[in-house]
């Protein structure tokens, strides 16, 4: 660790007063911990939207609950930008509870006593599925790094479809996801309508807005500006661009919460001080953000962050259908539930409403609910009883129509 510190200094990184606070970030080991993930390997690989072919494809996944006799009770959960397949169990790297424990589990809205729940790490991710840290196709002795081809949300969904086929599931009872997971749920319904009985895009959008792309670009720039990024070959140097990745996370985190939530949680309170007398004195919200940044770099790969944010930016479902979103869903039999949160300014209600309109255009069976919440975009991950009741009610209604025993 002292060695790392020296290298930092040699690299000319000036930390200023924040060095003390960001300290824990610097003290972490350079590489992400090696954890074995449950996965399937597809020897035929996958041809991507960009035209490149991945010779090797691995899809890491987890499942919960039991499948019924005809495998008609399978629900696919799609995770968000920095999520993973550990939906409802301890995350092996962080040791923290599953990211959607509030929603998925026995007796929960996505009831694992009733449904067979699957979640796969997305293509481009860093929790066992093929991504920038996987072995390079041509030079397997080193990772892809920034040479990893550009992937799209559609590519992610195609990789998941291979997994679902591998599990011998012909039709998913439901595909559910929030944020980028919602983009995947929409894509599933558009690409494989026959294979999706119900789709639940939560706090989602049919395209990534200019504002959202802009925020992502700040994050990518922060990573690229980190002297330890080494043009994406940080793994060769035995380091990680932790500071850049942490700043990316901090910026993104602001977009996940609402002003009201930040005010309620922190207001203008100071940490361990009554007044901002010293340069090191800080607001509570500052230390909170730094904590968000520093805990993130321990579990996420910077190149994965670049790849996945890009995939989100590229997402524009209407553009893939001649500019008419409705055409993505023409003739669909899938039942939809769209959910937005009133204080979400990253994926605002207007975005869900636009999807609802497109579904009306093709007279699709769609429900649309805006949940009143002041928790911002993150509300979909948190304890929102109205959302949870809506989701479980919708699934129960669908189960009746699907004659799910």
């Amino acid at each position, binding site marked *: 660790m002292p060695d790392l510190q020296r290298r930092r200094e040699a690299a000319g990184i000036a930390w200023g007063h924040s060095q003390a606070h960001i300290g824990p970030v610097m003290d972490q080991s350079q590489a992400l911990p090696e954890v074995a993930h449950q996965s399937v390997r597809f020897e035929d690989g996958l041809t991507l939207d960009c035209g490149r072919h991945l010779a090797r494809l691995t899809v890491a996944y987890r499942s919960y609950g039991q499948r019924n006799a005809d495998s008609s009770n399978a629900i696919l959960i799609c995770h968000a930008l920095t999520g993973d397949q550990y939906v409802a169990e301890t995350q092996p790297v962080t040791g923290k509870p599953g990211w959607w424990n509030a929603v998925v589990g026995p007796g929960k809205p996505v009831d694992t006593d009733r449904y067979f729940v699957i979640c796969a790490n997305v293509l481009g991710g860093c929790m066992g599925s093929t991504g920038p840290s996987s072995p390079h196709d041509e030079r397997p002795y080193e990772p892809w790094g920034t040479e990893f081809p550009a992937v799209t949300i559609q590519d992610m969904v195609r990789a998941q479809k291979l997994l679902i086929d591998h599990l011998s599931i012909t039709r998913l009872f439901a595909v559910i996801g929030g944020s980028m997971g919602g983009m995947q749920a929409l894509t599933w319904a558009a690409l494989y309508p026959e294979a999706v009985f119900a789709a639940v895009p939560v706090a989602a959008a049919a395209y990534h807005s200019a504002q959202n792309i802009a925020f992502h670009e700040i994050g990518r720039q922060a990573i690229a500006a980190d002297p330890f990024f080494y043009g994406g070959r940080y793994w060769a140097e035995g380091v990680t661009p932790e500071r850049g990745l942490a700043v990316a996370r901090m910026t993104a985190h602001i977009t996940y919460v609402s002003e009201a939530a930040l005010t309620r949680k922190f207001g203008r309170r100071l940490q361990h001080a009554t007044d901002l007398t010293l340069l090191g004195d800080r607001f509570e919200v500052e230390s909170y953000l730094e904590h968000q940044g520093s805990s993130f770099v321990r579990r996420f790969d910077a190149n994965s962050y670049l790849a996945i944010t890009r995939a989100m930016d590229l997402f524009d479902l209407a553009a893939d259908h001649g500019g008419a979103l409705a055409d993505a869903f023409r003739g669909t039999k899938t*039942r939809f*539930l769209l959910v937005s949160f009133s204080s979400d300014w990253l994926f605002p209600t207007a975005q869900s409403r636009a999807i*609802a*309109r497109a579904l*009306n*255009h*093709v*007279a699709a*069976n*769609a*429900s*649309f*609910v*805006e*949940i*009143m919440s002041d928790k911002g975009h993150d509300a979909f991950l948190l304890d929102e009883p*109205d959302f949870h*009741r*809506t989701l*479980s*009610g*919708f699934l*129960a*209604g*669908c189960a*009746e129509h699907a004659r799910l025993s």
Partner: protein
Amino acid sequence: MNHSAPVQFVAKNMRVDLRLIAGMVAERSRVLDIGCGDGTLIDHLFRTKQCDARGLEIDMAEVTRAVTHGLPVMQGDADSDLANYPNAAFDYVILSRTLQAVERPREVLRQMLRISTYAIVSFPNFGHWTLRLQLLLRGRMPMTRTWHRMWFETPNIHPCTIQDFFDLCTQDGYHVEQWLAADEAGARAPWRRYPGLANLFGEQGLFLLRKA
């Protein structure tokens, strides 16, 4: 439910009203219920007539309640959202006691008969004798069990009488397949053959329309 929230439409005395409407709907048909509230009618139509019934409701709390009960309901507005549906998407579109509260009733009717073969419309009758009498004797806006909100806060901005509605149907070329007048509880009134009498004694009108 939040009782302090503004009431969007007149209170719906649904039970009998619904039965009358449901009686007009064919089995296994495609139905859109505009202003569906908590979805009682679409649930009824699905369970008793195997209809593919959906709802549109302006009040988000009601939408949430309906979806929580597994019903396909979308938050939306009769005035602005019907234009999004394709032609002939439904067999029946229902507007139950909502016509008087929309901004452009004529356009809403036009949209209903564009997206659906039949339109079922019910509305509280402003021609009822108690209203006429109150206005005549007191010279003030009438207050009855149906029209129970003060003029300055009522959401019912386009009241009409049964006769008015007949006139509009003639004017816009809608064929009245069925009609009846009912009291507030929804019981059929015996004067259904005589629009003049129905207009005087019926508390609400119920119409089944299609394009002529």
